[in-house]
């Protein structure tokens, strides 16, 4: 899929500032284009599916600069990375733009040269798992080979340039004949995890542990951004069952266990950015959107203290900007949608909710 680059023209809803680090309050409400060269490396798996369809249709990837993302980026710029990691939590009603703000922040982190650990949806690890193998490393835990190997493949695409630079600090033994020695590059570990699907969950655990140890280091130190979408899935219930039909608790899954260790703030040299999500969540009422309701007691205690970042619906300026963008991309085709009457009706029907507006404009 080729994404087009366009010549510079002045418009009220677009900005030419495509670098998230240089965006400020004056760009609020404007769309910036993610450069086509970055697109597939930075976002192999993070974007919402409807947005991916939109990128394919419009032949370009444009993201709106909004208040929550700018706030997060300014926190990340000014944080002290020698102290334990700060946890940021994006919360808001369904469809208000939490995942897109997370992706904007991930783009910022990757342009700044951080190592990005992007988990597209933690709920995918606690439901609909076809193969649940008992873990070889720990007797009572369960492995998920398919999910782990998929994630490792996407991780490899995002962080190619880091894989050869980071060296392992410990020897890992996989089976009687296979082991990875100390001092080997991380790329080898990841390749092994992708090819040997059976031990991929343990590889994920090893990768997370290595990155946690080496993130704050002074020699060849890199900053680590852990971006988790749907973090409330890690502390709820799962829909998976063991062979004797008893339910599996989240801590009995290797992937979830290792990810929880990552979200703890006992390491330094990076940041944890998380999003709550009711859409994929299990056993949560559809009107719940606050951290207390979705994380539950256990989740809230583990995440506490965190920096909450509320994501609201579109303001008037943002709605105008979105409307003009759709007009520009020839997406609003109905003759009445281009009139004032139609616009008022769209505001009424969608209540300025970004995802509802998107679905409404899809068939107008």
């Amino acid at each position, binding site marked *: 899929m080729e994404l087009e680059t366009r010549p510079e023209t002045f418009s009220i809803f677009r900005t030419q500032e495509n670098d998230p680090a240089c965006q400020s309050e004056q760009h609020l409400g404007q769309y910036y284009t993610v450069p086509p060269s970055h697109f597939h490396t930075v976002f192999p798996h993070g974007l919402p599916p409807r947005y991916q369809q939109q990128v394919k*249709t*419009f032949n370009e990837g444009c993201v709106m600069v909004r208040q929550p993302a700018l706030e997060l980026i300014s926190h990340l710029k000014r944080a002290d990375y020698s102290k334990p990691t700060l946890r940021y939590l994006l919360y808001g009603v369904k469809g208000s733009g939490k995942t897109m703000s997370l992706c904007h922040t991930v783009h910022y982190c990757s342009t700044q040269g951080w190592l990005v650990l992007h988990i597209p949806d933690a709920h995918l690890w606690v439901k609909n798992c076809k193969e649940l193998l008992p873990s070889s490393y720990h007797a009572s835990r369960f492995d998920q080979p398919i999910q782990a190997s998929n994630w490792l493949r996407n991780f490899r695409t995002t962080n190619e340039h880091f894989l050869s630079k980071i060296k392992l600090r410990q020897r890992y033994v996989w089976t009687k004949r296979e082991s990875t020695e100390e001092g080997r590059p991380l790329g080898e570990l990841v390749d092994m995890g992708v090819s040997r699907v059976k031990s991929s969950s343990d590889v994920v655990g090893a990768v997370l542990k290595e990155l946690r140890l080496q993130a704050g280091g002074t020699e060849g130190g890199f900053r680590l951004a852990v971006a988790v979408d749907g973090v409330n899935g890690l502390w709820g219930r799962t829909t998976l069952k063991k062979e004797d039909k008893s339910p599996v608790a989240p801590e009995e899954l290797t992937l979830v266990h290792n990810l929880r260790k990552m979200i703890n703030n006992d390491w330094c040299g990076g940041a944890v950015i998380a999003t709550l999500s009711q859409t994929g969540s299990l056993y949560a009422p559809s009107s719940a959107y606050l951290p207390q309701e979705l994380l539950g007691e256990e989740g809230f205690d583990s995440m506490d203290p965190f920096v909450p970042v509320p994501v609201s619906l579109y303001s008037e300026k943002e709605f105008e900007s979105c409307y003009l963008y759709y007009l520009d*991309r020839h*997406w609003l*085709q*109905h*003759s009445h949608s281009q009139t004032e*009457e139609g616009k008022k009706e769209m505001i009424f029907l969608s209540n300025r909710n970004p995802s509802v507006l998107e679905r409404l404009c899809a*068939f*107008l």
Partner: protein
Amino acid sequence: MSASITGLLKPWTPRLFLVRWSRYNPYYLEPEPRKEVYHIPETELTPEQKEERELKSVRPIKAATNSVTSSVFNDPVLSKFVNMMMKDGDKIIAKGIITQTLENMKRKQVEKYHKAPEGKKAEIECNPYAIFHQALENCKPVIGLASIQKGGKFYQVPIPLTDNRRRFLAMKWMITECRDNKHRLTLMYEKLSQELLAAFSKEGNVVKRKHELHKMAESNRAYAHYRWW
């Protein structure tokens, strides 16, 4: 006075029972869903409109059905298509399929538009409503056949069709085509959007069926005088 009004408003049954009839007393007037009618100021009303307003203030009005809206995006032809596609009264599913079809058509056309070179962009029609209406126009037969009995045998006689009948036939053919000749794994909206785009450019099975009907009518020209209306 009140006795005669209550006499008029009692439950009414017609003398001749039609297939689809409404239980409303003919005394009731139709509702007016369009917003523009109510925004005309007092001074600009014509005498007929003034009379109509007087009448509406005394007569009772029927309840509006769920399908009429005062929305600017309301399209009567599309509503009729949705009703024809509906099964077992499940309008939500039918409306959902139609909206997905419109979205799918628009997506395909907009993608083609953005990838096309500058000269070709003006020819690509992106409006799914325009495509739908044009496709339906292209599927409407001009002349139809009726089975008329003459001398013990039945002949297929070419007859003119009313506008409603033509529209009904076009929609019916479209829906049956999409339901029958579809691969097991293709979804309805995908097949419908393919057929509509084909009909827009005058290709596809539905337009073929219309041409076959025209050919049959042409070949049966000789029996045209069997029609007496």
